[in-house]
């Protein structure tokens, strides 16, 4: 039963990927201008455009380019960047590593903190501690991340000179040097993603706390701490894991603003650059990676919530 459900989820995931690939392909082809026009920019003339288009093999019809790309992708060949001539695998390779390092570190720091703070706030609802946490997270959710990033740079880099203002990597730094270089974007992202996870943990647990069996536990005289850790938490884990998965997917695909402000060469920025240069194969490859990440993480979250909640194991 369990494996069947997981297999069904995987099949749905694949279908999603195919649909996304078509949408991305269509969406990128209606962007104004093509890669030749963007490369040449203000210096484009009809002759140089034609010469460059022919050189880039862009005179083929759209569906031919789509299917040949899909076929190549299936065997792991991501193609060649139209804009720079490097292979897309090589462009993405290093960026992917950077993104994973950043996402991994942020997750490592923010998930334990968030769950701990969320649980703590749920254990003491209505106290001033709870109020500080809810008010603080509300503030950081409401403030755009570029604002948090800029404020942090102004204080910690420009005024105090404690940390570098950009996440500039030389490629051969030690772990502590790496941490120092990444400190500012890490801090920004931890603040941004923790807020949501804290609120979700707190809300999820308080929600379960109002259910009859918890009331029963309270009437039996079980201590509040035990109720939360033993009974409420495992029942609330479904929505919490889902919010964690969404935030992790966001860390892989959606941190373009933070990457821009700290000049950090990650995947999201690469995709934006790809859109700006109309480098379709690059955009499509990034989009597929992002979509794949979402599908995978949501799948894991679903499996986790099924495991934590026996009721979900039985299909209705």
């Amino acid at each position, binding site marked *: 039963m369990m494996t069947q459900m997981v297999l069904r989820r995987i099949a749905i995931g694949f279908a999603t990927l195919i649909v996304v690939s078509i949408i991305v392909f269509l969406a990128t082809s209606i*962007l*104004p*201008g*093509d890669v030749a*026009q*963007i*490369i*040449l*920019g*203000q*210096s*484009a*003339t*009809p*002759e*140089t455009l034609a*010469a*460059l288009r022919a*050189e880039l093999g862009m005179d083929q019809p759209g569906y031919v380019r789509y299917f040949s790309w899909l076929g190549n992708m299936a065997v792991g060949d991501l193609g060649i*960047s139209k*804009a*720079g001539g*490097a292979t897309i695998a090589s*462009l993405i390779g*290093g960026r992917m590593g950077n993104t994973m390092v950043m996402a991994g570190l942020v997750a490592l720091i923010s998930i334990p903190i968030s769950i701990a703070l969320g649980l703590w706030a749920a254990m003491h609802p209505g106290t001033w501690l709870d109020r500080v946490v809810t008010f603080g997270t509300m503030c950081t959710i409401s403030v755009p991340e570029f604002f948090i990033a*800029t404020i942090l*740079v*102004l204080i910690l*880099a*420009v005024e105090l*000179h404690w940390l*570098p*203002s*950009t996440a*500039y990597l030389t*490629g051969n730094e030690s772990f502590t040097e790496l941490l120092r270089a990444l400190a500012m974007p890490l801090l920004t992202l931890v603040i941004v993603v923790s807020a949501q996870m804290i609120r979700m943990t707190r809300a999820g647990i308080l929600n379960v706390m109002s259910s009859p069996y918890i009331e029963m536990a309270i009437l039996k005289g079980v201590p509040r701490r035990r109720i939360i850790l033993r009974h409420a938490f495992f029942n609330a884990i479904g929505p919490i894991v889902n919010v964690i998965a969404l935030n992790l997917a966001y860390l892989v695909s959606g941190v373009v603003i933070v990457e*821009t*402000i*700290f*000049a950090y*060469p990650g995947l999201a*920025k*690469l995709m934006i*650059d*790809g*859109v*700006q*240069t109309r*480098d379709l194969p*690059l955009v499509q490859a990034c989009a597929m990676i992002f979509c794949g990440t979402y599908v995978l993480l949501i799948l894991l979250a679903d499996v986790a919530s099924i495991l934590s909640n026996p009721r979900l194991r039985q299909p209705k």
Partner: protein
Amino acid sequence: MTDETKNKPVRGEISFSELTGGDKALVEKAIKRGYTRREALKIMMATGVTMAAAQNIFTTGQTAMAQTPKKGGSVRMASNLHGPDDQLDPPLFTSTIDYTRGRATYNSMIQHSNDLVPQPELAETFEPNADATEWTFKIRQGVEFHDGTPLTADDIIYSMNRHLGEESTSVIKSVLASVQEWKKMGSHEVKAIMNTPNSDLPTLLGLFQTKIVKNETTGDGIGTGPFTLETFEPGVKSVHKRNENYWREGAHLDAVEITAITDPVARVNALLAGDVQLATSIDPKAFRQVEEASGVTLLSTPAALQLGICCLKNAEPGSNDDFVKGMQYIQDRERIVKRVLKNKGSIGNDTPIMSAHGPDFCHELPQRPFDPDQAKFHFEKSGYSSAELYVAPVTPGIEDVCLLAQANCAKIGFDLQLKKVPTDGYWGAIWMNEPLNVVTWNMRPTANSQMAIQFGPGAAWNDTYWNNERMGELLSASLAETDPDKRHTMYCEMQTLIHEGSGMVIPAFSNINDGIADNVMNMPTVPLGQLGACEWPEFIWLA
């Protein structure tokens, strides 16, 4: 006063070493920024210092600071744009970051000085024949590529041929179209056979895209330049190490790192925090922040970076001369320079030429004033009461220029609507397509190339579709003219034609504004691009 006495300190007058801290810093900054004697004296005298004292302070200050260049150190530069399309192949260079990497890695035949006089680089000498239909270049002997291959005429011919012919995808193909053929005359001599006489050819051979690569290669980072390429990651960074086998004195720095920070606020912050020593394209909004911060300087170089509004002459409403006149008279030029460009710019006279172009600039042409009454008169005569202008932030300040024009138009009852569009895709979809749009142009090294590219009849980038036969005649005739007076008359006639007849509105020119750390010395100020037209890698040193 001769130059000799000018440079001697005068006894009895206050000298540099006697100044108080703040004043000293000010003079130091002026000298470091490369102010000429006259500019520096003007500033000092404006603060009430006597002529003699000002002379003395400047001279003693220069002596105090004239240190010998120091070897060593490394510099990190942050440009404003980069991406996976970053190039090492010179004919395809399109952005400051490409130009800078090109400058560090390769050499051109010709180099531009700060005042745009062509200087020998890989070409030791360059001589035209009597009517400028042929140019002969003697190539420097004993120059080696980074891999040890000696430079010969073959490399030059190969590199230059990449700009010619139908197959060429070179960005400057049309700029070098006056060359018919490159001919090898010996192992170290080449000749350019021209289609049309061009006395400005050497200047054009100093353009960013004319870098010399090795025969049969397409820009793999092997050049003859002052730095060898260590690593290059498009859209991330490149690292360059000093070429110890360089044919000139060689770079002072051990290494340079070239990267970009695309966000303008983050770029300024990185400069202020000391994470980068050079930052390009400082936004006018950040001028004060950079000027007031300690340890960094705003390097503002007057240049012909036009803030232009194109009224297409082949479409309504630009085809109507009165409409264009109305648009020109409604520009509050002084206010634009003062408020929008924060005084880091110059007033434009609806021609692309300005004082930075040197003697070819027509001072005699009367300045078009801000005159709402005239504008109202011309708008009414044109019969239009509204128009739609496409605006993208193609250069800092252009949106404010359009907003100001909109406000001033509203005062005289003309409805100028602004349609804001992104720069992404702008050059393909809007520029030269929509009847009213905005434009900016990098400064070209000669007045002729600047006008030919944009106002030559039938030119590929004639962005107002203004085709004037007389203009075409003058553009080619002036290239063959060697008499300075006659040449100036011709250039004046051309600027007058553009000023009177074209569809271009050019209310102002922006300076090139970059931020540099105070310990960066000997910064070039070639006005053809950011950071001294990217000439800095070979010449700067760290104090």
